[in-house]
């Protein structure tokens, strides 16, 4: 049992977690050992009694008492109880008679046994109590020892911490005024730690300027205000910053009894803070300067703004810009300043020459182009001439920065500070950057001003140039307009003939566009003999007045040649003779002028029903046949006039019939281009002519012009557009002809009627049926009536000539007079319900005949021609357009 108990020590710690904690295991081993030794005494006592039992016969229980005592002493309560049981059993077995038998006959023997067991229990209880008491005392002692060690450690740490933090603590008993301080406290304040400290000795080291503030704060702290103040102290003449924090304790009556507080040396923080503040201000100043630079438009304003910024934002009391004058004295003039109030700059008289007054920072800086700092104005010999004045205004140090504009010294920026040595490396760096920016700004402004000046100059130069160009353009325009006017006049008067309207056998219309720029297009109409018409359509190479003059000259030569060849001849010359003669006259001149003329010379001879054509490199002539409704292009293959002097011109001929249409045109028509660059071309022109074949020549001409304009998608056609359309009204010679005249008297009207009736309705061979005769007579009557009433205005001696011609297809009656050509408005039937009885004449006239022509004839007389068809004329139908050359 005891062994088992020994082997199982501290079941609550060992069970379940036998290897949890080595310390716990060691403790268990220790405890088991102790229990083992503590249980030895009962056995020793039994052994000893056994030895002694033979020598002496001691009292049976004698030695067991001390054994149990020791066992319980060593082992405590439980061990004591175990020893008691063990001893009792040993004694009972070995020494109480009868020995070696637990059953005793004498019951009295139980009394000593009970006594022993009771004593054993008592020993156990006693020793257990004693052990606990001892252990408690021992624990308390150990605890105390640990606490003391910790306190010592703590105090040590505190001291070290205070030393590191430059923090001292103090405690002031306000009743005894005894001041207890930490080790660091006198060290911070620079006081002797051996000497007793009190309020006065503390007050002695406070900076004189801060003393009042500190005292006030302390007085307030004694009334309950928290005491937290930063102030300067002056231990050993050196200025330091400290922060003090204190708490004052009060008694129940509110009387302050104790103060406890700290003092910390914050000089490094204050220094950094001050420096940071300075740098911050300088940076802000720099930033503002940059803004000013960006916005600056004028040099003086910029300089003033920079000075203002240095004073207001960077916090320096004075800043000024001196300009280095290039005069003899090399003076420095103040061109802008800020912070200047009481006149320091008035009398400073600085020069940048190497003289006494040139040794100051500004002068030196300009001269050397370097930054010059005066750390202490009071001590610097450089400042001698201005020292008193500067000190008077409170300037203790200054810094001069040169302003360099593209390697040229402009002046210097000088900044003053109220304390000595105010310009550390950061300030100098920032201020020199600022000075650099300022110089750059001035430089930029000057460049900008120069550029603006140059631009202005350029602008005015440009304006002048523009003015000249405009004036010249205007002159040119005027010249061109003059030229255009001359050209137009030439064109209208010399180049383009009016198509003859008096030809009974031909209807002619020519396109005459009012042109902006004239060209050498020309056309002429000549009647070489009755029933014939020569049409000359030409185009001189080139444009403008020269071409027009050449065109006019060419035309004149043609007319001259025609005149020469006609004179003395039986009949008119052949067209080729005219062309050859003209060419002989003008070819060499055209060659000299390096010009040439393309030309069509056509003779339309209605009597002989033929057209003779000389095509001198021109476009040819479109011939639309009335009978077949087909069109073909008549053209030769001769060179233009003036290309080759030896050129022999050939003449081609074709037969013409009544109703045929001949269309002359210039290459301006066929070579007109649309926006895509396509040519109008001869094919389109032929199509157009075929589709319009039955139209009157004037309508055909206009339709061609419109077609070209549509094709080109332009409203105004270019120049060089010539179209002449000639419709063959009648071929062959007249079958009858008659003429007579009446006086301009209304009573003569019946003679006109009788003449018409006699001519066209003779009984033997009437040209017209009776109704037609009547209508023609009525029309002639109305015309004559009009002429007498309006053109001759009642003058009876005027003559009205009447002639009549009959062709196979029609009868023409012409009335001529010397009055103005009367061009009537489109005739319409007068309203019969209106109260008028006249105005029917015109209407009756147009209704009575097939055609009426009003024109001035070749003798200058006004002519009205009335045409009556002899039979129902076959209208010229739509013409087939396929199968024609393009």
């Amino acid at each position: 049992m005891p062994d088992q108990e020994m082997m199982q020590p501290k079941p609550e710690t060992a069970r379940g977690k036998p290897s949890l904690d080595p310390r716990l295991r060691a403790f268990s081993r220790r405890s088991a050992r102790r229990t083992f030794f503590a249980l030895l005494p009962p056995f020793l006592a039994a052994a000893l009694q056994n030895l002694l039992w033979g020598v002496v016969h001691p009292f049976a229980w004698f030695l067991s008492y001390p054994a149990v005592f020791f066992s319980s002493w060593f082992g405590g309560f439980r061990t004591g109880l175990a020893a008691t049981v063990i001893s009792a059993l040993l004694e009972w077995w070995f020494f109480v008679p009868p020995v070696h038998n637990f059953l005793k006959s004498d019951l009295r023997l139980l009394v000593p046994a009970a006594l022993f067991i009771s004593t054993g229990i008592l020993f156990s209880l006693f020793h257990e109590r004693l052990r606990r008491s001892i252990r408690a005392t021992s624990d308390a002692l150990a605890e105390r020892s640990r606490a003391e060690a910790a306190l010592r450690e703590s105090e040590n740490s505190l001291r070290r911490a205070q030393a590191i933090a430059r923090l001292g603590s103090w405690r002031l008993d306000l009743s005894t005024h005894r001041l207890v301080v930490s080790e660091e406290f006198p060290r911070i304040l620079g006081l002797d730690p051996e000497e007793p400290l009190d309020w006065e000795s503390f007050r002695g080291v406070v900076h004189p300027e801060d003393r009042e503030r500190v005292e006030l704060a302390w007085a307030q702290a004694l009334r309950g205000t928290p005491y937290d103040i930063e102030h300067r102290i002056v231990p050993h003449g050196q200025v330091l910053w400290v922060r003090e924090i204190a708490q004052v304790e009060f008694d129940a009556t509110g009387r302050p009894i104790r103060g406890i507080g700290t003092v910390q040396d914050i000089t490094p923080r204050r220094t950094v803070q001050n420096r940071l503040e300075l740098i911050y201000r300088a940076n802000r100043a720099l930033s503002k300067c940059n803004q000013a630079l960006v916005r600056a438009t004028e040099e003086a304003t910029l300089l003033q703004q920079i000075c203002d910024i240095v004073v207001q934002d960077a916090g320096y009391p004075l800043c000024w810009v001196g300009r280095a004058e290039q005069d003899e004295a090399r003076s420095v003039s103040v061109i802008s300043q800020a912070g200047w109030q009481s006149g320091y700059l008035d009398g400073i008289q600085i020069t940048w020459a190497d003289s006494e007054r040139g040794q100051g920072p500004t002068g030196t800086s300009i001269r050397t182009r370097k930054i010059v700092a005066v750390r202490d104005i009071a001590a610097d010999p450089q400042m001698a001439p201005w020292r008193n004045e500067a000190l008077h205004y409170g300037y203790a140090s200054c810094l001069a920065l040169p302003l360099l504009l593209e390697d040229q010294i402009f002046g210097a920026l000088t900044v003053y500070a109220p304390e000595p040595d105010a310009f550390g490396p950061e300030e100098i760096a920032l201020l020199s950057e600022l000075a650099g920016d300022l110089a750059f700004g001035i430089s930029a402004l000057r460049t900008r001003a120069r550029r603006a000046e140059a631009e202005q100059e350029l602008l005015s130069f440009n304006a002048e140039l523009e003015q000249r160009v405009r004036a010249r353009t205007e002159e040119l325009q005027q010249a061109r307009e003059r030229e255009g006017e001359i050209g137009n006049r030439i064109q209208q008067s010399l180049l383009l003939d009016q198509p003859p309207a008096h030809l009974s056998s031909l209807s002619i219309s020519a396109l005459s566009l009012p042109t902006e720029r004239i060209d050498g297009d020309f056309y002429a109409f000549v009647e070489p003999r009755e029933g014939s018409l020569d049409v000359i359509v030409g185009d001189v190479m080139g444009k403008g007045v020269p071409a027009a003059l050449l065109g006019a000259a060419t035309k004149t030569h043609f007319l001259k040649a025609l005149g020469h060849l006609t004179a003395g001849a039986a009949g008119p010359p052949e067209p080729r003779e005219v062309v050859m003669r003209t060419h002989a006259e003008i070819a060499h001149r055209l060659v000299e002028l390096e010009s040439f003329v393309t030309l069509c010379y056509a003779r339309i001879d209605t009597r002989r029903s033929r057209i003779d054509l000389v095509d001198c490199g021109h476009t040819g002539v479109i011939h639309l046949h009335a009978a077949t409704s087909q069109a073909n292009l008549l053209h030769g293959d001769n060179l233009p006039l003036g290309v080759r002097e030896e050129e022999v011109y050939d003449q081609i001929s074709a037969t013409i019939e009544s109703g045929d249409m001949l269309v002359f045109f210039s290459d301006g028509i066929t070579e007109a281009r649309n926006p895509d660059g396509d040519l109008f071309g001869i094919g389109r022109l032929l199509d157009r002519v075929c589709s319009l074949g039955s139209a009157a020549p004037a309508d055909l001409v206009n339709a061609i012009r419109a077609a070209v304009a549509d094709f080109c998608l332009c409203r105004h056609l270019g120049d060089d557009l010539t179209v002449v359309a000639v419709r063959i009204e009648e071929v062959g010679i007249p079958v009858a002809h008659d003429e007579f005249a009446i006086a301009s008297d209304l009573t003569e009207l019946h003679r006109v009627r009788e003449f018409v009736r006699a001519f066209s309705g003779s009984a033997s061979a009437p040209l017209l049926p009776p109704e037609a005769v009547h209508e023609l007579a009525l029309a002639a009557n109305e015309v004559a009536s009009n002429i007498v009433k309006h053109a001759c205005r009642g003058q009876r001696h005027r003559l009205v000539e009447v002639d009549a011609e009959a062709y196979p297809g029609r009868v023409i009656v012409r009335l001529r007079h010397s009055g103005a050509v009367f061009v009537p408005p489109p005739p319409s039937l007068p309203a019969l319900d209106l109260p008028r009885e006249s105005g029917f004449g015109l209407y009756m006239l147009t209704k009575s005949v097939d055609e009426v022509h009003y024109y001035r004839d070749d003798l200058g007389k006004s002519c009205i021609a009335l045409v009556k068809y002899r039979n129902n004329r076959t209208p010229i139908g739509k013409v087939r357009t396929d199968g024609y050359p393009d």
Partner: protein
Amino acid sequence: MDIPTEQKGNVTVASISVKELDAGNVGDFRRSLVPVLESSTHLVMDLTRLEFVDSSGLGAILSCLRQLSAKGGDLKLCCMTTQVRSAFELVRMHRIFDIFDTPGEAIAAFAG
């Protein structure tokens, strides 16, 4: 110009005696008709002899119609030759005149 008239009841029949009426004699024609137009309101113009009329003549005849219409009368035409008829038709005047083949028809038309 002599324009013989004949009274048939309240209708006056005037025979236009000229063969041709044009601007040369239309003044004479107008003057000769003045008394006829004054004395009568219902007039028949017999154009048997007239072979030609021009615009002036048509104007004069139209004038007669207007004058008679103004005083509540009327003008009727008869015996128009082909040429004169065609002249009337040319200016659509046949639509505003009552034209008859014989004087009797014209007079009867007045009665109707």
